[in-house]
């Protein structure tokens, strides 16, 4: 196999991997983006993601309908978001600390209820074949996308458009940038943040459903391996722009596919390094984007990390 052929294989695998792996990143980061735009941080989305994965799998197994599982995962995520939102509107509560508590609570609860669902095989979500035009089975395989991926793209566009062009988007942005200004406009800051956190939780729950019902497609306790946390970092990378969130999610998905792809063409030296690519990327992004001298461009002014 020549170097060119190997390079093509890796590039192809990264693109295919980006499509396969990015959806949970996308949903969690869109949820976090919405929450942070309203001026609050929810680090608990990792727990929401894991609990969403568990509840979706359980419901799909019990009822035989994976789509019902997705809806229940969303609602469960919304409950987690609502709890976070409710606690954070109490006076003198640190939203980062509550977020970490919610993360542990979500994963712990998911492990507790999920015991019975590790073994059985639940019906999975179907895929849509977008590769009909190609004769290459690999291309076709790579373009077998899940409807949730497409929903995620639409959601990113709607959020991006909504933040700029709708009254609702303006209210959320105002709340996030300056609570006094929002108050002066007659907006109830607490209610806006509560709703934004709950809806953000809904998105993260749906992202979890993708993990357990489509790819990799089963419920195990190691399922998320930090993807929820990486997605939170990804929002900063994307500068709180939903469209950039989509790009960043694709990039993280591709980074995750790098290690296995290189090994599949026979390069296994340093595979630990390549396997760690998504984590290294998170770290690099945090270092590059944080500076004590300036505040982040595009950061909502009310966020507790920027205040």
């Amino acid at each position, binding site marked *: 196999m020549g170097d060119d052929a190997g390079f093509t294989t890796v590039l192809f695998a990264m693109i295919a991997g980006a499509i396969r792996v990015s959806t949970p990143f996308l949903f969690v980061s869109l949820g976090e983006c919405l929450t942070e735009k309203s001026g609050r941080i929810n680090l608990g989305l990792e727990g929401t993601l894991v609990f969403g994965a568990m509840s979706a799998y359980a419901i799909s197994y019990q009822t035989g309908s994976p789509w019902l599982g997705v809806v229940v995962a969303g609602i469960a995520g919304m409950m987690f978001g609502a709890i976070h939102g409710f606690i954070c509107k109490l006076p003198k509560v640190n939203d980062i600390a509550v977020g970490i508590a919610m993360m542990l609570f979500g994963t712990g609860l998911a492990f507790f209820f999920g015991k019975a669902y590790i073994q059985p095989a639940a019906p999975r979500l179907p895929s849509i074949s977008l590769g009909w035009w190609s004769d290459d089975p690999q291309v076709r395989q790579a373009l077998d996308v899940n409807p949730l991926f497409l929903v995620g793209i639409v959601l990113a566009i709607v959020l991006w458009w909504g933040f700029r062009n709708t009254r609702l988007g303006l209210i959320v942005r105002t709340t996030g940038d300056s609570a006094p200004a929002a108050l002066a406009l007659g907006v109830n800051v607490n209610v806006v943040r509560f709703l934004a956190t709950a809806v953000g939780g809904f998105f993260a729950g749906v992202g979890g459903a993708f993990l357990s019902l489509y790819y990799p*497609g*089963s419920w195990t*306790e190691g399922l998320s*391996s930090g993807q929820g946390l990486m997605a939170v970092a990804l929002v900063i990378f994307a500068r709180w722009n939903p469209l950039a969130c989509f790009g960043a999610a694709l990039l993280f998905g591709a980074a995750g596919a790098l290690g*296995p*792809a290189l*090994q*599949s063409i*026979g390069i296994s030296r340093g595979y630990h390094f390549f*396997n760690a690519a998504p984590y290294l990327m998170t770290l690099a992004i945090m270092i590059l984007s944080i500076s004590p001298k300036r505040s982040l461009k595009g950061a909502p002014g009310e966020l507790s990390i920027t205040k």
Partner: protein
Amino acid sequence: MIKRHFDRRSFLKGTAAGLVGLSASGLLTRSAFAADITVGILYVGPRDDFGWNQAHAVAAAALKEVPGVTVVEEENVPETVSVSQSMESMINLDGASLIFATSFGYYKPFVLEMAAKYPDVQFRHAAPLWTDADPKNAGSYFGYLDQAHYVDGIAAGLSTTTNKLGFVAAKPIGTVLRNINSFTLGVKKVNPAATVQVIFTGEWSMPVREAEAANALIDAGCDVLTCHVDGPKVVIETAEGRGIKTCGHNASQAPLAPKGFITGAEYKWSTIYKDYAAKVGAGEALPNFIGGGFDKDFVQSTAYGAGATEAAIAAADTARAEVTAGKPIFVGPISKQDGSALVAAGATLDNYDPALDQTDYLIEGVVAR
């Protein structure tokens, strides 16, 4: 000043000793055993992971059927000080007299410390780590799964049409490398033109990366997949979803792949567990170190699935019978990947050769650089 005590504690001690004496003399026995025993088992993950922990849990379930044996289990015990805490609670609260520590990292220092602290309790650990310098009430038991992987390789080598087979492996440590080598030897024996491609995920359990690895192997042209990770569920299901054949690992994954499952390499810990429980119950000494494969019934092949052809079944059955009878798997000439000779032409390595416990190489025929 010497004062004679007669307190409640010493009274209870004396009574208990008397009762133990009575029961030992056979007056109070209720079961087939000379004494009822409690066995404690610790798992590093969930008991139903379709893999390593499930293989032990299946054996624990078989052990519960034995009259006179009580089994206490604890799942998700991380390889930290919680190992000691869990063991102490099993010993002091549940009265366990035999502990099975089933994860590699439990041994040092936790099993060794507890064995020194509780000399009357027997500790056995599922990896070949015990040496003469360690406490005599500790020990190791191990199944040589590479023998079953060799049989998998025979069946898999006859099932491929692309002559490319894939192996998703967790970490490049001795037992994993040995399984890959034996699988490859099985493949090469029946299909010299075939190669085995390996992807290491770097973790015992990492579902998304395991799925990515399986997809990458399939994209590279592999049409039979097997793996050595803690829970093979994701690899087997991903391969089945893409319509290719699979061989299992650790426990039975046959239900996960109704179309493409060929066979699998499974542990049979119940053989060891039942034997140990019977020995402890009868007051006999336990061996400090045992290991075995097909010959001792410590490993087994999963029942053939729909993916197994008649030719593959026949060849695998023959190979299993040969290995059980002691026929070596490592028959020369075999070279390592760097080209140096491992086994010379005409020579063989015994299936239990101690040198194989130190495997730190992959053999020729495995694609990984």
